[in-house]
């Protein structure tokens, strides 16, 4: 039974995503947690495109999450844009631009340098966000983001209640999941995996590997930016920690816990991480200690993560 459910989920990831997350808020203790899983799952999904499928370890994905969040937040709170869609577009635009520029710089070095550079550039954005207090609110975070109703042709749908917001996020994350599936199933997605397995061979086959990596980087930043934008709308504030290295570390841990290079791993990992955080923080202030230990145990003994181990590590899942 369990195996059939598991194989069914792995074979039809988009349908499975829709089925699971359509009822997810009723399976967890409270709605806010469900929305968080959805948003951080999307963040991890974007990270996984780069790490799990392209083989590039970014330690600075907070940059794009933060750009998405600040872009959207600034559009609504500072510029007074009246449309959620326009604000989302601004957040996405900031993340895409940031991904393209930072990706260009980081891809000048390969291998382990790459991880260090992504981290360094994310730290740069953190300091910029910290010091540009007039625009970003600095240390206090960006406050006063209004929760506007979402306008669709002929309708204006309020999203203040947690459950309404959940389904608003569900629609957008669902679209992102469909888009990611399309990317992975396309010839471009196949070449990304070829780059992951052997970059030199892919280059010898005539592919412009650096350009492919940059594209993957920008797509990845786009997903992370959408996640950040949704988080800004959900919280109605953007804390400065959105850009901090801890946020970059969080998405790395979520993805690894769930299973890098698997389609569902990021959501499984985000749910595991957030539930652990939620339960542990009730007991002790030192919950990151426990999460750090769990993460180290996974790197040492279960490098394929929860979902990767359950599905036998096949990249199809």
């Amino acid at each position, binding site marked *: 039974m369990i195996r059939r459910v598991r194989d069914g989920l792995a074979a039809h990831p988009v349908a499975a995503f829709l089925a699971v997350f359509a009822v997810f808020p009723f399976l967890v203790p409270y709605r806010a947690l469900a929305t968080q899983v959805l948003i951080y799952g999307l963040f991890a999904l974007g990270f996984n495109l780069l790490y799990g499928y392209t083989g590039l370890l970014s330690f600075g994905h907070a940059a794009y999450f933060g750009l998405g969040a600040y872009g959207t937040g600034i559009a609504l709170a500072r510029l007074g844009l009246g449309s959620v869609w326009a604000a989302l577009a601004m957040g996405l635009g900031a993340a895409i631009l940031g991904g393209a520029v930072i990706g260009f710089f980081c891809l000048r070095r390969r291998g*382990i340098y790459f991880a260090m550079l992504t981290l360094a550039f994310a*730290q740069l954005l953190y*300091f910029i966000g910290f010091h540009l207090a007039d625009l970003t609110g600095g240390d206090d975070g960006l406050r006063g983001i209004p929760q506007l109703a979402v306008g669709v042709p002929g309708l204006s749908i309020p999203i203040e209640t947690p459950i309404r917001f959940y389904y608003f996020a569900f629609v957008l994350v669902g679209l992102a999941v469909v888009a990611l599936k399309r990317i992975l199933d396309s010839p471009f997605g196949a070449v990304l995996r070829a780059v992951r397995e052997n970059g030199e061979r892919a280059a010898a086959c005539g592919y412009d590997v650096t350009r492919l990596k940059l594209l993957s980087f920008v797509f990845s930043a786009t997903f992370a930016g959408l996640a950040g934008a949704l988080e800004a709308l959900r919280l109605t504030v953007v804390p400065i920690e959105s850009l901090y290295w801890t946020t970059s570390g969080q998405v790395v*841990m979520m993805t690894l816990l769930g299973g890098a290079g698997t389609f569902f791993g990021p959501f499984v990992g985000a749910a595991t991480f957030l539930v652990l955080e939620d339960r542990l923080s009730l007991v002790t202030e*030192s919950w990151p200690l426990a999460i750090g230990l769990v993460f*180290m145990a996974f790197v040492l003994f279960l*490098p394929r993560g929860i979902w990767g181990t359950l599905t036998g590590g096949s990249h199809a899942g």
Partner: protein
Amino acid sequence: MTPAILVTHLFTGLVLGMILVLLAVGLSLIFGLMTVVNFAHGSFYMLGAYLGFFLLGLTGSFWVALALAPLAVGVAGLLVERVLVRPLYGRSLDDPLLLTFGLSLVMIETARLIWGRIGVTFDPPRELGTAVSLGFTMFPVYRLFVIGVTAAVLLALWVFLARTDLGLVIRAGSRDPLMVQALGVDLGRIRFLVFGIGTLLAGLAGVLAGPMRGVYADMGVTIVIESFVVIVVGGMGSLAGAILAGLLIGEVVSFTTLFAPKLAEIMVFIVMAVILLVRPSGLLGEAGLLE
């Protein structure tokens, strides 16, 4: 803008640069020999600072703390290599980075449990607590002492790497580990040793920095990112490159503080971006080495 202020900032930059060099050299040694990016390097720096604080309280002597804390950190580093890092040799290069990231979270939270969530401070020893005249201006003796100690340690390290048989093996192991092993050298033991040396240097940097920069649990994270930048700017595997880049960045930060304080932290990364554009392999690095 008097000469006195300029000289003061020159020396302040030198002190910061020396601390960065100590960290970057350890990171670079560990990376060069075992292709491990030790994300927890900053946490060993933090551990050194807290152990210095602890030993100073215990013994009342700064000198005992300065001698013992780095050694204790080095021993902790040896343990970490043996228990945690060694199982990862032969796996993806990303795995040690991921593992040491988890380790640094654990170390930071453990420090908070032991020493509290608010930082601590400790004073330089009384004999170094005064200021000395540099001609134009007064400068704290302790900072000159830090410059002197780091310079001596770096010189010793250079002699060790360039002039001893063990140093030769370490350099050869960074360049071609397979060949070195084929010649009958037990690289496992060398890696063990180098991880210990690298973390010891981080611990020393921590004790030295403690009286100047304060001691708090996540003091290591920002500075480890800056040491990464030093390595990128200096060129991986080059001791001279790390020293040059460390001092350059120390001075850049110090003088930016003078003219535009808000830009100081940002300038570090602007220097890095410029180097990446004009000389991706770093000031003294060889292109393609250790990638």
